[in-house]
């Protein structure tokens, strides 16, 4: 399956890293889209069909929590796109809050290609067999 993936992070280095690890993971990504904050990400989700979104939490302009809240309250079908939060913060308080807002998954840094692939496949194929299975 050729995936359209949006990476949301204010750090260009981190966006480049996620992209690189995506490639190493063997996930079939056809198009990468990038945004530096939640507001930029909403502009992309409004016009682009996406399979999954990976977002940071701490960002200027609009942070990851606000982004998930806005996205999920949008009437557009794209509002249901799976969102994986990528963060170093794995406290129970933070994870619970993000899942309640509508995040589909959570990937804690540090992570490698296997963890990334596992979480993307988990949210994409929840309840189904994965393509390789």
């Amino acid at each position, binding site marked *: 399956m050729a995936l359209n993936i949006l990476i949301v992070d204010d*750090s*260009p*280095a*981190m966006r*480049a*890293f996620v992209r*690189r690890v995506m490639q190493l993971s063997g996930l079939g990504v056809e198009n990468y889209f990038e945004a530096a904050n939640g507001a930029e990400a909403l502009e992309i989700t409004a016009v682009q069909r996406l399979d999954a979104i990976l977002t940071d939490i*701490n960002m200027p302009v609009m942070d990851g929590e606000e982004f998930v809240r806005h996205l999920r309250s949008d009437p557009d079908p794209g509002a249901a796109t799976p969102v994986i939060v990528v*963060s*170093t*913060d*794995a*406290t129970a*308080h*933070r994870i619970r809050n993000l899942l309640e807002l509508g995040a589909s998954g959570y990937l*804690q*840094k*540090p*992570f*490698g290609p296997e963890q990334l692939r596992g979480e993307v496949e988990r949210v994409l194929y929840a309840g189904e067999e994965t393509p390789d299975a």
Partner: protein
Amino acid sequence: MPEAQDADALVGALLESCCAQVLEAMFFSPVLGPAEPAECRGRPRVAALLHFNGKPSGNLEVDADPGVARALASSFLGLDLSDVSDSQVDEVIAEFANMTCGSALSSLGRVEYFHLETPVVSRPLAYAPAVEGVRRGFLLDGGTLSVCLRVEFGPEE
């Protein structure tokens, strides 16, 4: 006093484990062994200082040989050493500080919530520690890197 020593030993062990995990998983750079922070003195450095607030609050400092910082940026970004700019080195060292701090705090007991501020990167001409806390040094391919963490839990409620 023994309690404070126990807490320092715990934070030190956590720093060792979190740094090794972050370096290996995200920078493809294994730790070759411990390094005394004192070995870093007297040479130009790349440093990052990060404050965090919440429960607990505190700060984390990263100090690296310029060669190590550049090598980490090269591995993280998947670029040749010669293609890595100074601003990319700064950005990657800031990411390292962010990841190490978040990872250590998430693994520390008693942590309720925290917010990491944006790390400030500097290039002092000599080793100049800005944080008084638990410091651990690491030998990496090409030089050394040290991390210092200070955690303040504040009074019990």
